[in-house]
């Protein structure tokens, strides 16, 4: 990270990284999604890429409109499908940010593809004052010590009217509960910073940052890949880091370590074992 990136991440709780996915990479990521969307649910499940639809009782998501014959808002555990999605586990353009922000041996604890239709939104959640231990933003001894860092990769252009990601800059340090919690981010609110992206951009953020997505008033479907990382002693989010068959044979050592988790209790040298 450059000095300016360090300063801005500490200041705001996020960074926008422009163009981290090359056009060829974007094509290779979108192609299997295009293909899977030609299949019915049973067929995608058989391929390991089960679609999990967002329902109207979800406390976080406001589901979008899905015209007759089209898919509703859904998530998909893409690592179970494999293919190019495995390349993002240790993408060189972003992994060094993760390593510096977490500040010790880390693991991937979740990866998910999200498809969001017109009309959908995601309500604000989290913030430092919540004291959620698994999302804490921390800076000590001259370095970041975050315990949950996430990257959202945009696979489509997402402007404000398309329901872009939105944050409250600085809320990763706020000592007061977010008054906008549970609300759909209003891009006109003075606290709210919408983060429009071009396809191939990425947003990297501390999970302690209050975040959500503004309402999609456009006609485009928003496609995003989220990859989440944590210190090695954290567990995974349910099955969201499960991989496709043969991953262990295909993966390079770093990629394998990020999935299997390095030694979870690093620094437990003989003198320090409890």
């Amino acid at each position, binding site marked *: 990270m450059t000095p300016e990136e360090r300063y801005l991440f500490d200041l705001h709780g996020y960074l926008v990284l422009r163009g981290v996915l090359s056009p060829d990479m974007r094509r290779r990521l979108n192609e299997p999604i295009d293909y899977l969307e030609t299949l019915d649910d049973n067929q995608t499940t058989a391929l390991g890429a089960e679609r999990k639809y967002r329902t109207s009782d979800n406390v976080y998501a406001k589901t979008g409109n899905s015209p007759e014959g089209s898919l509703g808002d859904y998530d998909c555990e893409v690592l179970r499908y494999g293919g190019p999605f495995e390349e993002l586990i240790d993408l060189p353009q972003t992994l060094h940010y993760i390593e510096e922000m977490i500040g010790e041996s880390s693991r991937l604890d979740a990866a998910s593809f999200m498809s969001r239709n017109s009309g959908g939104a995601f309500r604000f959640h989290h913030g430092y004052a919540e004291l959620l*231990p698994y999302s804490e933003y921390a800076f000590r001894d001259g370095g970041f010590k975050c315990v949950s860092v996430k990257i959202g990769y945009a696979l489509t252009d997402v402007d404000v009217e398309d329901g872009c990601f939105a944050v409250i800059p600085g809320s990763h340090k706020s000592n007061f509960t977010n008054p906008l919690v549970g609300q759909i981010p209003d891009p006109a609110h003075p606290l709210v910073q919408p983060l429009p992206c071009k396809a191939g951009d990425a947003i990297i953020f501390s999970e302690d940052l209050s975040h959500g997505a503004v309402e999609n008033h456009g006609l485009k479907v928003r496609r995003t890949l989220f990859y989440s990382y944590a210190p090695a002693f954290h567990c995974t989010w349910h099955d969201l880091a499960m991989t496709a068959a043969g991953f262990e044979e295909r993966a390079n050592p770093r990629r394998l370590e990020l999935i299997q988790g390095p030694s979870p209790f690093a620094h437990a040298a003989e003198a320090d074992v409890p």
Partner: protein
Amino acid sequence: MSTGDSEGSPMKPATEADVFDLQIGLGESETPVEDKHFFDTTGYLVLDDLLTPDQVSQAQDTLVRIEAATPENITLLPEGPYGCELVNIIEGRGTVEDAMALPRVLNYVQEFIWGRQYRLVGSRAILRAPRRYSWLTQGGAADPRRYARYRCFGDGQFRCLMLTCLIALADTADGAGAFCAISASHKANLPHPYENTDLNAVEPLCNVPLRAGSGVLFTENLSHAFKPPTREAHAWLSYQYGPSYMVNWPGCEPSTDLLARTAADPAKSHLLLEPYYHPTGSQKKQKM
């Protein structure tokens, strides 16, 4: 933003806790404020008489049996950092299993870790031979073990990571073989300067003498050690607790047999849940 209730008086803004139920059991335990103050100030609490004399005797017998013929799901480490260790001792049944879920201990664990989102991360028995030397752990801000962090916020909310409950199976009341710690070192901003110092020469190191069956609950971020036993070996039971998302210590995965026989025990089965971030269904507190 809030708009006001039917009578026109301003409504309080919704808090995250109003909307999402991501943290359960906070503030439920009945820990006396004196205990919270002592733990926050010193980094440990002494818990007298956790085990009865009969339980102590039964646990000692179990350790002898296991050391002689170690079952498959317990690991014998002849040269652990504090002496011979039996890792995953809860597989030994009886008192060594029951002691992981002592109600008095769990009440503090719930208070100091994260409400009801806590679990057992590891367990071991420590067998300390006479004159066995022990290191002083680093503790405080200089301790590189992130999983050991101590956290307590200004309004008295604890979010500690690993806590250890150490139960003496031998009397260390005279100081020989005693657990010892540098009180308040969990908040030290600087590394301790005693890396190569004999424990007896570490001026701020305090003995925590315990009768057999008594224990000490401490944050792993506390600088601590054991004084060497002088004449006879000392045995200890050690249980590590962490937040619900902390994975098991290597070698401490519960066996299917253990899970089956503890399934009807709410406290034990809760401790042995697989690691998780949120309790099942916790995000459906309120429909929006």
